[in-house]
Structure formats: C-alpha cells, structure tokens
C-alpha cells in the first residue's frame, strides 16, 4: 500500500492537470479559433444587439409571432427563494416537466392548453413540453395551424406567411435521417423582415 502511495498521488495530480486544465483550455482556444460562432454559443445579433441563440428556444406570446412548444423551466421565486415559479424558456435553468403519463398535473396542463389550441386533433408538440424546456423547434403541422393568426395580426396575405414557413421548414437528411422541423426564432426573424404590402 505504502509503495503505491507515490504513484497514486502523483498520477491523480498530473492527470487532473492534463485532462482538467491543459486539454480543456487548449480545446477552448482551438475551438474559438476554428469555429468561433459555434464555440461562443451560436449567438444571433440584430442591429448590434444579441437577440438570442440560434440553438436555444425563446418564448413568444404575441399573436404576431409563431409560438414555441410549452416549456416547463422555472426560476427561483423572488418572494421566497426556496420555491420556484414557472418561467418558460429560462435558458439558465434547463429541464423538463418530469410528469408521468398518469400524472393529473400533466392532464390538467394539456387540457388548459387545448382550450386555446383550436379544433382537434391538435399536433402533440403544441401541448407537450420538451425535455430541455428550451426546444428551439416545432413541427411543420404545429406551425401551419398558426399561419392564419400570424397573417391576420400582421395584415399579411396567408400565402406570404405560408411561403415563409415552407422556406424555413427543414426536412430529414436523405429523406430519413432526422425530423421535419421549423426553428421558431429563425422563422419569426424572417417574418419581421417582410414589409407589409
């Protein structure tokens, strides 16, 4: 045991230095040099101000924008820090609802969301929260149901909004790899660039 003490102590220290300090720092330098956009969080700027990350969902509530999925993220309650309050798309505290399929809380939440979701059948992603609470994307079916609302709120023809949606719908690679999806922030930015006719 005693004769192994020196190798144990030195290897713990040296391997920590190598794998916990030298390599991560070198990796950070290299990544920032080669892929600066991705390494810094794929941040999107508009008029010189950061408006979000291309990969992170953000909350939209007004009729003028496409809405993301429900989000189960929370923040500490300002009145009582030992409790939390729901804050959708809180990007510094990721997490899902973790509600069981048999949870009354899940059924009640979905019922409440369905009340404003229009005629059945409603696409599942419009009323289910994601694992991260930060899902940047929705399904094309979910987006298509929002076209009329967005077009009306912006005084745009339906065809213009549907055209934008089609242009920003991403398909599976080679027809099978990945899912059909729409990045909500990207689509909403494109909407803002359309001038009213």
């Amino acid at each position, binding site marked *: 045991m005693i004769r192994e003490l020196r190798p144990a102590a030195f290897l713990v220290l040296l391997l920590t230095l190598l794998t916990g300090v030298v390599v991560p720092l070198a990796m950070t330098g290299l990544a920032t040099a080669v892929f600066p956009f991705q390494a*810094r969080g794929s941040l999107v700027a508009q008029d010189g101000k950061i408006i979000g990350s291309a990969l992170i969902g953000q909350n939209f509530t007004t009729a003028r924008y496409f809405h993301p999925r429900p989000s189960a993220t929370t923040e500490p309650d300002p009145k009582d820090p030992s409790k939390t309050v729901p804050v959708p798309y809180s990007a510094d505290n990721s997490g899902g609802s973790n509600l069981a399929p048999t949870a009354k809380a899940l*059924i009640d939440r979905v019922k409440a969301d369905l009340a404003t979701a229009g005629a059945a059948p409603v696409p599942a992603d419009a009323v289910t929260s994601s694992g991260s609470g930060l899902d940047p994307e929705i399904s094309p079916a979910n987006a298509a149901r929002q076209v009329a609302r967005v077009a009306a709120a912006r005084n745009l023809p339906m065809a213009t909004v549907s055209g934008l949606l089609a242009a920003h719908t991403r398909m599976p690679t080679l027809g099978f790899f990945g899912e059909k999806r729409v990045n909500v922030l990207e689509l909403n930015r494109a909407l803002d660039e359309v001038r009213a006719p």
Partner: protein
Amino acid sequence: MTISGWAEIALALALILLAAWPVGYHIARVVEGERTFLHPLLAPLERGLYAAAGVDPGRGMGWQSYAAALLLLNALHFLMLYAMLRLQWFLPLNPDHLAGMSPRLAFNTAMSFVTNTNWQAYSGETTLSPGSQMWGLTSHMFVSAGTGIAAAVAVSRAFARGGMETLGNFWADLTRIVLYVLLPIAIVAGLALVALGVPQTLATHADATTLEGAQQSISMGPVALMEAIKELGTNGGGYFNANSAHPFENPNAWSNLLETLLVFLIPIGLTFTFGRIVGDQRQGYALLAVIGIFVVTAIAFTYAAEAHANPLLTTLGVDPAQGNLEGKEIRFGIPLSVLFNVITTATSCGAVNAMLDSFMPLGGMVPMFLVQLGEIVPGGVGSGLYGLLVFALLAVFVAGLMVGRTPEYLGKKIQAKEVKLAMLAVLILPFSILGGTALSLVLPQATVSLGNAGPHGLSEMLYAYSSATGNNGSAFAGLSADTPWLDTTLGIAMLLGRYAFLVPVLALAGSLAAKVKVPASGGTFPTHGPLFVGLLVGVIMIMGGLQFMPALSLGPLAEHFVLFAGKIY
C-alpha cells in the same frame, strides 16, 4: 413505428459496429505496450508521467496489489473532488462567484463521479463554475473511465495464459488508456461537436433581449470536451441540468448520432479487445452476439411503447401521430430519443436526450431493467465487460451442473471458489437496489422527494437505487434527489455498486490467472457457438433479471394497466 425511424436506428448501429472494431484492436495494442501511430507524439508524455510518479510499467501486480492501487487512486481522487466542490468559492474560473456545495451534496457528487456514475443531484448550470466542471468533473470522467477499462483488461488477462501470478500494472494500464485511447478520441470528437454547434467557451452566459423585448440569460461554458468524454467514457454527467436534451449539449440529429456512437464505441470495442487478449476472436464475437440480442430487443420494445401516444391525451383531442412527445425534443423525434436512451442505459452512461420520467410506463421500464441487469450488455467502459464475464462463468457453471462435468471457461477450471466470488459480486445488485428502494419507500424523509404519485412514484424510487447501484446516473428526474437521506444512501449505493462488485471480480481474476490452462478436448463445452450465446442470455435473464420482476410489476407494469384503464394520480 416507421420505416424511416428504423432506418435511422439501423444506420447508427451499423456505424457503431464499424467504428468499434478498430478501436477494440487499438485498445488491445495499447494495453500490451505495443507501439501505435500515436506513440511518436505521446510516448514522451507517457515516460514523463512514469518518471514523475515513480512508476515501473513492467512491474507486474498480483490481484491484491492491483486492487489496492486502484482503490488508493480512487480514494485520493474522491477526496480531491470533494475538496474542490466544497471550496468552489475560493477557486479560480468562477466568474459568477458560485458558493461551495453543501457537505452532503459534495459527498454525493464526488462519489458519483469517482464511481463513473455521474448521478446529478445538483443542477450543472446553476451550481458549478466552469472551473469546477473542467478540473472537477471533466478530469474525473477521464480517470474513472480509465479505471474501469484497466480493471477489465486485468480480468481479461486472467484467461490469456496459465500459471500467472500477476494481472499487469495498474498505473501503466491507466496511463496508457487515458493517453492513447480516451484523450485523442475525446479531442477529435469534441472538436466535431463544436462544429455541430456545441459551445466551448469560458464565458458562463450571454444576455439576450428577445424579439418580444424580454430578457433571456443563456447559460454556456466549456461544454464540448466534457460532452465528448461524457459519452466516450460512459460517464453521463451533463454540463446542464437537462443533460443531452439541452440544445447546447446535443444540437441536432448529427450530434445525436456522434454521441450515440461514442457511448457504444469502447464497450462494444472491448469485446474485440477481449478476443484478442485471450487469443480467440470467436470468444469476443459470442459476447457481442449476447449484447446485440439484448440491445436490439430493448430498442424494439421501447420504440413500440413510445411510438404509441399517451391514450389519455388522445382522448382529449391531441393527435397521436407524433407518439409520446412529453419530455422529448422535436429534433430527435421518437426513434432517436428511444435509440439514445436505450444505448445510454444498456451502457452505464446515463446521459439522456429525453426525460425518462415522462416515458410511457413500459417505455421507461426497459431502461430501468437494462440498468438492473447490472450494466453488462454491454455495460460501462470496462465494468460492463468484467460484469459480463462473471455471468459467462456462471453460465458455464450452470451448463456443467446440467451435464455433470467440471465447468471450464477458456481452458480455466471453474471451481467452488470462483463461483462463490462471482455470486458475491452479483448479489450486491439486489441487495443495494431492492434493499435501498424498500427502505426508502417506508420512510417519510425519502417519500417526500417523489415527484409523481401512484405506481409511478414507486418507479421513481426504484429507478434511483437501480441507477446508483448500476453506476448509470440517469434518473426519473421528477425525484428531488438533493436531500440528506437520498444524497447519503444513493452515495453509498454507488460505492457498493462499483467497488463491492469490482473487488470480488479482481479476486476471481487472480484465482483464475494462477490456474493452468487446460487444452480443449472433446468434452469441453464450446463457449463461442449459438448454444452458449443462448445459454448466456438465459442465465442473465434468470439470475440477473428475475429478482427484479416483483418490483417492476408494482411500478411500471401496474402503471401501464391503470393508464389504459384511464386512472390518473
């Protein structure tokens, strides 16, 4: 289930097999001290580490010395991480001035990372600084993975030749695996992940003003390297609370494919390493076939469960076409969520890209069962292989009982001592999993942590002790895990699951190494054919799985029936 969904799964499994094959041979060359293409670059570093630490790589160690060296290094590493987590406030690279962890949470977290479990009772982005994530957690991911692989290599050597007194040198095994296997793959994969969108920065967050004028603080950090070794070392501890469901850990279907591949790379590769070390490649293929049967069955079962939408939501008017989508991300859909979570529970990785707590009852049962089998098909890096070998010994023992012959495995006679040691290791699992769950379910200080009621509550608690004992680290995350009771007892479960299993297995290896190698004869039961594969599958199910059936009936199975009867809690 869809054809394109199965095509995605088939593509990933095919790529895994293709990639694991050369990696397995590379590991065999590295641990035997042969030169590889990486030696011109890294050999001076290896020699430097030996010189500084006073290691003679040629000095063989008996099983006692090997186990003592391994435990000593792990003990020191545990103490160092505990200190780092407690003293976080005083350490550099902590721009948000985050406080140190409480003693119980630091104990739980340090135990979690030294045992390769990566159970997360804390929330990464709100609790830990970039510094702690780097030299605390990331470095542990390399060393705990290296420890597991070293132990598996030592056990494999016991079958290679007859009359051996030593199992190899632990310091050399560990150093070589970290330098020549884990570091190079993690660096290349980490850079690829950055290219796909995973951040690697020392900034802790960016402040954004959204299009609607709201403020959004976006957490980030040195994620990519940690993500790579988290999957490669089957560690599983995420930078963020949401783990690989977080878009910064796993931004798209391609990063998901790469991460899935990394998780299986070494556990599958080690079956090739094993074949090469024992000098009979067919022995490795037989183990691979057993693993394949379990993994493909598990994927099919879980996929069928999750592709089915929650019937309670369908009744309310939700379109069932997208399957059970609560807790899942759009970019992965059902097939890639199922694939990822089955692969990270078939190994002891425990990363998740969808929330297991919201899986359908039977969909969540499969990952839990894979963990309860003891993380052996294929299990964690290293720990899975030696676990599977224990079951292989039990399988030849059972076969020997049936036909009345002395059982042998790879020319080594399996006698009373070996079977006792194997059972000693295997019995730790039900003791810790079922014992811990049963105790917690009657104690109010434990049940207060449950996030869901009814049979699902039982599943949450059962999953926690399964995950900790199996050193998996995933969770039915509705459970509030940072309480005095759970931090302490789950920490102990991780300790038992790792070392109370490993030490008897090293003793077993020491005993086998010393035996003469009996040449195969007409009476030898071949351990590479379909008959052995079928026998081993059966022994794993009966000796490793059956004991958990009563508990699973009270949790996920009961929930399945009440769900389809329309009952909610």
